[in-house]
């Protein structure tokens, strides 16, 4: 039996992803389309009568007037303009049942696409709880398409929808479509509002709970305090809760390496598996706990409706810098890893603002910098108290602040040079507060986490193997210096000597190009310390004797800026679809890294000598 391809269309807050997750479960998979930077979810499910439906999760749109990248993707998906994909066989249009007066015109707009349509009034339970009453039969008659209600989060709440699909399927397969005449938006709205007035039997005032909560959340003083409090908890959780899990993963990787050494005979193959594959992939897996905690916070804040409020509150601040409120979420994600941050920039509806956000995202201190910061700070900054603060903690905090300030300055300069143009419109719906749904949350978390693992994992795996080769060959090499990596490092040394870096650092920076944290392991190898990053304490002593304090500080400054992450550069290339901007990002970050390290080296040398 042929598969019916249906697109799930709806406004950003209509509960679309919840319905999608509910219908397809964990069988959803990310679909890629050739030629565009699209990543939409598709998933299959069986109806009670045994029809197979392939559901396409279209990015949230309010209508067909596409402006953001996400919206353009949605529109070309619906029109079948994406290379290699036909238009869907039908549309399931989702409306928030509480707000059909405001959003009903989108159904009339969708009808102009000429595809079979079915309308779902979602979150009917919440609407009924508020006291909203709708004459469904009348709505169905007037629209001329099937209308069902649903509570997407619950299986029982989806039953009507699924059985209605079964009834419609044969008609849809015959493509019995209704092609509504195209009309201007004003006329559509007028018709939709008139229709809404007819079918809404009772319409109470706005959700009172949301209004009560917003008294505090959007209060000019309490609001920012609450936001700072939430951010403080988020960072506390990311950096302290994750510790034990990260330690366990490191030990697991070390145990696996040791076990493999026992199984595979000594030789190049054992080296490849242990030093290349296990160490390389392990160095990415270590950050998984932080990524999970960060996304847990972001997904819960998003599902509850808070994140839109946060974006509104920081909007004016971001605007002064040359960004806008929507950049808040991508930049927040970038503290865990710039890769999901850069991808989240898709929701920004202005191309210039999106590009600026992508370009500054790597300046947010990602978790991959922590192993390096921790190593150098532990070795060179004495753990003395300055007032009530620990000096080491202050330096770490300072590095975060320098990253944020740099992002502000860079965005400011970009806005006045290459990204000129007036501020873009802010038009953002603030959804009413909702309790996040557990199953939905876990599915979303899994989608994010597996995407991170797959993307970062494959790139790191490939580069780990390549760099293992560079560091281990030619086999005649007596030490790392004689290896290919060492030879490249010797070339770099000439460039890096003026900013206080020695040959060992130069060598470590070569494999460190793949991912920042790899440099820690490489330094471990260079200084012949066993265990590399598993044994930071062991590496501190040789560093203290080999490096001056200015050199250590210069390396810290270097890492605030240096774009040493293939995954970030590859994601930037994919999302901007431009070598020019990827090159620009690499170039400006490298320049800043070199200048910052040089200044730090010479200024601190002047003061310390």
């Amino acid at each position, binding site marked *: 039996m042929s598969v019916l391809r249906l697109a799930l269309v709806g406004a950003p807050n209509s509960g679309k992803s919840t319905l999608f997750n509910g219908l397809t479960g964990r069988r959803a998979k990310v679909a890629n389309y050739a030629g565009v930077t699209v990543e939409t979810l598709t998933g299959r499910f069986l109806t009670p009568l045994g029809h197979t439906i392939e559901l396409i999760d279209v990015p949230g749109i309010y209508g067909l007037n596409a402006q953001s990248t996400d919206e353009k993707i949605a529109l070309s998906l619906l029109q079948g303009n994406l290379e290699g994909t036909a238009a869907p066989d039908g549309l399931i249009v989702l409306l928030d049942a509480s707000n059909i007066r405001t959003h009903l015109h989108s159904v009339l707009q969708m009808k102009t696409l000429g595809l079979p349509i079915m309308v779902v009034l979602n979150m009917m339970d919440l609407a009924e709880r508020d006291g909203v009453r709708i004459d469904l039969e009348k709505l169905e008659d007037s629209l001329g398409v099937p209308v069902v209600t649903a509570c997407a989060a619950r299986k029982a709440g989806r039953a009507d929808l699924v059985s209605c699909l079964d009834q419609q399927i044969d008609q849809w397969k015959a493509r019995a479509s209704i092609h509504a005449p195209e009309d201007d938006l004003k006329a559509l*709205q007028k018709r939709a509002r008139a229709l809404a007035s007819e079918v809404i039997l009772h319409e109470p005032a706005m959700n009172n709970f949301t209004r009560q909560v917003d008294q505090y959340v959007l209060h000019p003083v309490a609001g920012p305090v609450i936001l700072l409090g939430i951010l403080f908890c988020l960072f506390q959780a990311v950096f302290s809760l994750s510790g034990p899990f990260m330690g366990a993963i490191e030990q697991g990787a070390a145990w696996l390496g040791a076990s493999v050494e026992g199984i595979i005979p000594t030789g190049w193959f054992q080296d490849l598996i242990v030093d290349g594959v296990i160490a390389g992939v392990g160095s990415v897996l270590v950050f998984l706990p932080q990524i999970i905690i960060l996304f847990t916070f972001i997904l819960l804040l998003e599902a509850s409706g808070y994140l839109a409020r946060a974006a509104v509150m920081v909007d004016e601040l971001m605007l002064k810098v040359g960004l806008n409120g929507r950049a808040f979420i991508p930049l927040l994600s970038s503290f865990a890893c710039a890769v999901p941050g850069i991808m989240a920039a898709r929701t920004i509806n202005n191309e210039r603002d999106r590009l600026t956000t992508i370009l500054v995202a790597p300046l947010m201190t990602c978790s991959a910098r922590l192993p390096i910061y921790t190593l150098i700070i532990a070795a060179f900054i004495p753990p003395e108290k300055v007032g009530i603060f620990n000096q080491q903690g202050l330096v770490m905090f300072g590095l975060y602040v320098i990253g944020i300030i740099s992002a502000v300055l860079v965005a400011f300069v970009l806005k006045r040079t290459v990204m000129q143009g007036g501020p873009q419109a802010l038009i953002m719906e603030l959804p009413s507060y909702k309790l996040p749904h557990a199953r939905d949350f876990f599915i979303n978390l899994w989608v994010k986490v597996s995407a991170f693992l797959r993307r970062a994992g494959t790139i790191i795996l490939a580069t780990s193997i390549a760099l293992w080769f560079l560091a281990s060959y030619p086999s005649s090499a007596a030490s790392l210096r004689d290896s290919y990596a060492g030879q490249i490092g010797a070339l770099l040394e000439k460039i890096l000597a003026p900013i206080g870096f020695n040959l060992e650092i130069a060598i470590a920076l070569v494999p460190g190009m793949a991912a920042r944290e790899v440099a820690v392991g490489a330094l471990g190898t260079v200084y012949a310390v066993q265990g590399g990053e598993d044994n930071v304490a062991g590496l501190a002593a040789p560093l203290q004797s080999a490096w001056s304090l200015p050199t250590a500080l210069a390396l810290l400054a270097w890492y605030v800026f240096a774009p040493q992450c293939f995954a970030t550069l590859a994601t930037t290339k994919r999302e901007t679809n431009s070598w020019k901007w990827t090159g620009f990002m690499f170039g400006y970050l490298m320049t800043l890294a070199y200048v910052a390290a040089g200044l730090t080296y010479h200024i601190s040398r002047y003061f310390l000598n």
Partner: protein
Amino acid sequence: MTLDKVEKLQITRVLGFAEGNEDLVARLREIGFAEEDEVELLYRGPLGRKPLCFRLNRTMVALRPDEARVIEVELV
């Protein structure tokens, strides 16, 4: 008057949109602003009293004054 001029908790009705901002008006219409709709300013942002958070029928939408200026309203 235009929507950026309203005081907090004043209930207004949308009369129409300023000419010459087709893209912006299209986006405002798509998110739900339309003639006859009820709009009320509920909250202002912490910095420079911007952006503006409006109740639009039973939904909430945030706009900057630049966007709100495009919408013509009358007091109810």
